[in-house]
């Protein structure tokens, strides 16, 4: 049972504001992924949680107890570092046994050995136990670091970009394993990454951060389907969401959106969206369309546009199509085996249901 709570936490490093008034609460036993670009304040959040960094303002609670002033060694929170931080002068076994030996006499050497070997077998590093960390590969080092985190039973696991420095194949392998490791699934885990696929794959909930601010916290579906603002929509999804600055035109068959950059391109709206824009009192907005909702095949409620293909990148499981509607450049996802070429004239279909509308100044999602 462990619920972590941040209450109005702010952290300054000199003049730099790393965290700005961040408040959130975990659910007991959940896998919470913090997603954001570098400098978002993700690692600072973890370091404040484990006590390596003291917040400038605000408090941290663990199960309702204020732990803000507790030193790291008296919080029962374990963490793997982005850089692994294995002790080079100790064998893999001693590295993993290290947390268990922190309080003299807490565990006998037999108990320690049993626990280390169990975890090592689970992580497939049992043949390495007598070696030194310098003799292990990158993926193995990451497993050893994980093993050291998991040998004791902490209230919370903190994982700081555990897959960031591994090559693609091992990254996918380990990501799958995270799903299977019971300890991580049962215990509250806070996982930091800048990779939205990791976030969507692993997170029970995702917390999006940028420039020290918490933007949104919610399930992967919520984050993907109902982003609170343009920044959240931009961070989740690859290729990134298309953003078209539009003005509302209230002529003819009810409201529609006309691109500011390319006035010939008008996006029509379905009836629900039209009734919203009848009430909308501003003129401008930012229209967001995910690439997966732009294609060459007609779908129900699709809005049709004349486009010219600029670049097509077949990537195996999907094809990234960059095309121009007049001066407007739009990215769509299509069948990777599609036979298209540069400068070809095509009909582009935009799924009107899947359009997002953001305020062009505050960048907030207008439909929420």
């Amino acid at each position: 049972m462990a619920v972590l709570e941040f209450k109005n936490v702010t952290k300054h490093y000199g003049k730099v504001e790393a965290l700005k008034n961040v408040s959130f609460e975990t659910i007991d036993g959940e896998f919470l992924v913090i997603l954001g670009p570098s400098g978002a304040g993700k690692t600072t959040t973890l370091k404040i949680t484990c006590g390596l960094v003291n917040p400038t303002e605000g408090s941290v609670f663990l199960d309702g107890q204020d732990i803000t002033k507790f030193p790291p060694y008296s919080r029962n929170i374990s963490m793997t570092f982005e850089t692994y931080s294995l002790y080079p002068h100790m064998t893999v076994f001693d590295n993993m046994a290290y947390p268990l030996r922190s309080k003299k006499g807490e565990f006998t050497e037999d108990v320690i050995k049993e626990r280390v070997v169990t975890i090592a077998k689970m992580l497939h590093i049992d043949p390495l136990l007598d070696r030194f960390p310098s003799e292990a590969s990158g993926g193995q080092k990451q497993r050893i670091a994980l093993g050291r985190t998991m040998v004791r039973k902490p209230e919370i696991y903190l994982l700081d970009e555990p897959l960031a420095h591994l090559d693609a194949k091992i990254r996918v392998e380990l990501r799958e394993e995270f799903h299977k490791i019971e300890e991580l699934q049962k215990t509250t885990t806070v996982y930091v990454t800048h990779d939205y696929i990791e976030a969507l794959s692993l997170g029970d909930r995702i917390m999006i951060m940028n420039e020290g601010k918490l933007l949104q916290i919610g399930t992967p579906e919520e984050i993907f389907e109902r982003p609170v603002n343009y920044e959240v929509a931009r961070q989740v999804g690859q290729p990134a969401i298309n953003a078209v600055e539009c003005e509302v035109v209230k002529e003819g068959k009810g409201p529609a959106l006309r691109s500011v950059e390319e006035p010939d391109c008008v996006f029509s709206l379905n009836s629900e969206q039209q009734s919203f824009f009848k009430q909308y009192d501003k003129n401008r907005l930012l229209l967001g369309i995910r690439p997966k909702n732009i294609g060459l095949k007609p779908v129900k409620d699709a809005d049709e546009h004349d486009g010219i293909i600029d670049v097509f990148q077949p990537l195996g499981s999907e094809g990234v199509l960059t095309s121009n509607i007049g001066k407007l450049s739009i990215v769509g996802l299509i069948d990777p085996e599609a036979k298209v070429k540069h400068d070809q004239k095509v009909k582009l279909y935009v799924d009107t249901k899947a359009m997002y509308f953001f305020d062009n100044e505050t960048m907030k999602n207008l439909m929420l």
Partner: protein
Amino acid sequence: MNQKQIKIVKYLALFLLAIFVIFTLFPIYWTFNTSFKTMGEVNNIPPTFIPKNPTVRPYVAIFGKKMATKAIMSSFIISVSSTILSVIIGSLAGYAFARWPNRAGGDNLSFWILSIRMFPPVAAVLPIFFIFNLFALTDTYISLIITYLIFNLPLAVWLMMMFFGDVPVELEQASYVDGYTPLRTFLKVTLPLVKPGLVSVTILCWIFSWNEFLFAYVLVGSRVKTFPLIFPALAVGSTNYWNQVCALAVLVIIPPIVLFIILRKYMVRGLSLGVVKG
């Protein structure tokens, strides 16, 4: 450059190295050689390169002199005490300068410590003598221990500061999160990683204290003597006992050589390479 020229350069380099080796090893060889000669053979002209009648008399004579054995013991006590203190204080200060440069006094303080090493010791020897005299500390172990400590600390602090600076802070942070207090982290993680630094500092401090002559000559001399003060006593007078001088010299270079051989493998750097990231 063609093959021939490369060869010429190679032989030239070997030739220069050979001269260097002879230049540095010859005095040691000659000391060793002389220490086994009788007084008669020492003064032979031309000199003999291998003793005709090797004898251990000079060594027996040195061991028979209470003054000499006592001086070697005194040298041990003074140099070992001063070295232990230098390593302890140097590590703690070096750690503080490496981790919290501002709280430890900043660049100016650490540079001031280093600057102690920059002025010639001979300029300080008289003031130091008067200060110790004021406290009635001349001719005591403690005066030399303190003096050697002062001159060893800059080296100890700076070397340890650099070694500690190379230990990633994240290793210490990981240890805190693993449940260790800062003191236990220092002992379990940080200190073992700077072992090569500790060894280098130990050797350098000890050799300085072991061989030092100037301060010993001024600060002590009657009740307390270190071995460097014995040499003039053997060599000055109506007869110069060169064979005994050399025997004493051979005896006192043995401990540094043994120490160096034992500790050499720990001086190898690189333990901390590949710690962080793959």
